[in-house]
């Protein structure tokens, strides 16, 4: 297995790294959308995150890697009466690629051809959604995804369950995953329905600063020449960050938010005119994750500010005549609300 580029070795792109960490700490946040030019390290960051995440416990042999500790929301087999001892093992958190142009069959799962042909048996072969359960589903060029797949993903993401009724099969299994999408907005806009589902949205840009670019190329080149040595040089950093994530995951449910902070967040969203309440909710939860990563016990406006941009950027109404980007609008509103 080739070694992915270490997460901590990625130069710059702080907003993207931060958003990915926050989403990893709180998988229910709704994932991350990364928009930007080619060659800005989008895929690198997502793949790097995969190896950074602490391993998780899963039922052995379960195609959906159900959590042995929680039968609620597990697949029918794992949630069934299980007085018998379930064998479990530690597995890396799955990061599943959904390649552009993947067929519906491969995404939701389909008839197991081999068994049908060889034994005349009707068996379900789990698809990408099954493999992504409890992990990450990464869609590169999400904006170019075909509409019928987008609908399907929205459905599954909303219910946390994949229901397959086809080819005489009737299967339902858990499919709770963190959706990570990346793409280049100039190649096509994302459908508004899908846009809204993403918890966080970041814009990555090619760094204009030559020194940063040089450092990025230098590191990548060093990695390509000797991946093992390069990874070893960052092993300590990786381990530190891994521990930080593990600690934050434990801490998140205990984090408080003061009513004053809630009120300010609401003011912020009103000032920006975001549609619905999803903006407020996401922002508050993301702020909790930020606080957890910083080992704070209360999420304050400082934490809100740190994640406001990615949490709200994609929820503002577009005004074609407004030359000011959504980033600037959020900044202004933040300054107003923060007083």
């Amino acid at each position, binding site marked *: 297995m080739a070694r992915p580029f270490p997460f901590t070795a990625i130069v710059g792109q702080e907003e993207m790294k931060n958003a990915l960490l926050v989403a990893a700490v709180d998988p229910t946040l709704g994932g991350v959308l990364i928009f930007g030019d080619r060659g800005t390290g989008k895929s690198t960051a997502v793949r790097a995150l995969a190896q950074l995440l602490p391993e998780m416990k899963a039922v052995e042999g379960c195609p959906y890697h159900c959590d042995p500790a929680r039968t609620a929301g597990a697949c029918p087999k794992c949630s069934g009466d299980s007085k018998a001892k379930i064998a479990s093992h530690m597995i890396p958190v799955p990061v599943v690629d959904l390649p552009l142009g993947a067929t519906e069959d491969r995404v939701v799962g389909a008839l197991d051809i081999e068994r049908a042909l060889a034994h005349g048996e009707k068996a379900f072969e789990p698809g990408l959604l099954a493999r992504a359960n409890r992990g990450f589903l990464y869609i590169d060029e999400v904006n170019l995804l075909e509409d019928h797949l987008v609908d399907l993903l929205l459905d599954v993401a909303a219910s946390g369950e994949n229901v397959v009724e086809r080819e005489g099969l009737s299967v339902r299994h858990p499919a709770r995953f963190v959706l990570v999408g990346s793409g280049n907005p*100039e*190649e096509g806009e994302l459908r508004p329905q899908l846009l809204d589902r993403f918890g966080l949205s970041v814009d990555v*840009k090619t760094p204009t600063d030559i020194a940063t670019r040089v450092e990025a190329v230098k590191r990548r080149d060093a990695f390509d020449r000797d991946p093992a040595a390069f990874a070893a040089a960052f092993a300590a950093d990786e381990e530190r960050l891994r521990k930080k994530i593990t600690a934050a995951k434990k801490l998140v449910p205990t984090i408080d938010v003061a009513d004053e902070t809630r009120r300010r967040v609401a003011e912020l969203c009103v000032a920006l005119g975001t549609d619905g309440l999803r903006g407020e909710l996401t922002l508050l939860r993301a702020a909790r994750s930020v606080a957890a990563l910083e080992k704070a016990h209360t999420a304050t406006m400082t934490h809100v500010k740190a994640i406001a941009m990615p949490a709200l950027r994609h929820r503002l109404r577009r005004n074609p005549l407004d030359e000011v980007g959504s980033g600037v609008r959020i900044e202004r509103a933040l300054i107003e609300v923060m007083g």
Partner: protein
Amino acid sequence: MADENARSAVIWKDALVAADLIAVDPAGLGGVVLRAGPGPVRDAWLARLRAGLPKGAPVLRAPTDVGDGELLGGLDLSATLSSGRTVAQRGLLARSHGGVLLVAMAERLAQTPAAHIAAAIDAGEIVAERDGLTICSEARLAVIAIDEGLEEDDRPPAALRERTAFQLDLRGLTHRDLGLQDGDQPRPDITAARSRLASIITPDSLIEVLCTTCAALGVGSARAPLLALKAARAAAALAGRDVISDEDSALAARLVIAPRALHLPPAHAPDDEQADAEPETPEPEQPPEDQDSDQSPPNQPDDDKGDVRTLDDTVLEAALAALPPGLLAQLQANAQRLRAGQTGKVGEAQNTVKRGRPIGARRGDPRSGVRLDLLHTLRAAAPWQRLRKRTVAEDIVRPSLEIRRDDFRIKRFRDRKQTTTIFLVDASGSAALERLGEAKGAVELLLADCYIRRDEVALIAFRGVGADILLPPTRSLHRAKKELAALPGGGGTPLAAGIMAAGLLADEVRRKGRTPTLVLITDGRANVTREGLGGRAQAQNEAGIAARSIKAQGLRTLLVDNSNRPEPRAGQLADDMGALYLPLPRANSQMISNAVRASAPAAQAVRR
């Protein structure tokens, strides 16, 4: 003619160097997009590449319609059935490990196989789960994407072009050009170069030079300098050097960075005030103003980018020198493609179910006017036959093949988008009535032309306090003529409102799956704001803002300036909206329509 020959010789020489560099470091360089038709030139190039590869290195060929199974591997169905146990099959990517994979007609390669190949280049391995097997094998390879596309927008997928170091264009060469280089130089020792590769020393300043060169030429991707660095390293190894020299980096800049260039280095400080205020529309910087007159690349060093003074001129010059004549047009085409979001064919073509190029099948009901894909239907039904035979009652006469509704597969096609031309006509008092008449005439002539191409036409007029869609997108020439005859004139000039209306309509047209083109006939002078109030300055300002939003949309636009003397404001407006500017004083209908028609293909390639 002599120039032409010399130029061909240079292209061929570079192409051979690129082949050798790939042979030295296939996986590091990712490969080549090779633009060449079949013939001796292409064969000679491939032979050169093959000769340089290590003995026994695989050179495999993937067809354009290569499937996931072939690329990634999976279950060997026939072997599995005959042996009764699972037999895995290795895919093309795994089998190309250590060598090269040729992709024939890569311009027709679909996104999915391109994504798999790109992933293999990125990771040097393939990981896939297919047919109940976990496939994981090394796949360090170079991809030779053979591009036989004829049109500029008919290119291999951007994901591949981004990851291959070189882009060679051998289309202009004939077999006569080949003799010029062969034989007069000894073949470099590629095996020795390969073993030397790991110990080549990279001077510290080199990476900075390459990054700066990329920045100066508008190449944003971090992969470009990285690939250039690897090319330079391979070149040093090939030349028997221990340290990468300036010559190597110049070569890398020429072969790797120049083909990716989006603009020439700015000759003056770019106006960057708004760059920070517009994070939503990261546009490439505009090419310099003197583009039409000056065809030779300017040699001004890039002195105005703040702290970037370390730019190694030789490297940038090497890159600049490699820019062929006519490149300015190409640069703008690149930039426009970027702006218009049509990197490759995405957005130009749409998936349909009725006509176009077939792109595979999907489950569906063949009754709703779509075409049944018999082969895929049979294939879908095949695994079920044993099961189905079992469940059917004995007294029913069984067909030898049972096909059920679930099995139906329908054909899917990819279709070229049709064009909708939106005419935006200034019908205000400032456009004298006479000229308005000529504009109407020109529009009618163009309509006839559009009609022949089965394109749609829409007409928006602005006058008084606002803009009206006088003719929604239609193919009916008759209806259009009627509407045009009734076009009233006079009143103020709400230019911003007109442009906004055209932008909205273009958006609507695009959502219907057609490609909008805008033809704006005006003198560029606005005097009514969007609110319908007077005020020249404010109106002009708003028109500029609206124009920039058109540019952000990437809409193909032609601005016909029908004032008596070319009006600077119209030129400015054309700049703002990224339009082709056509000053046509005293134009009559025929002139206008000819100009629009003549510039229609050019509007794709050359834009201000």
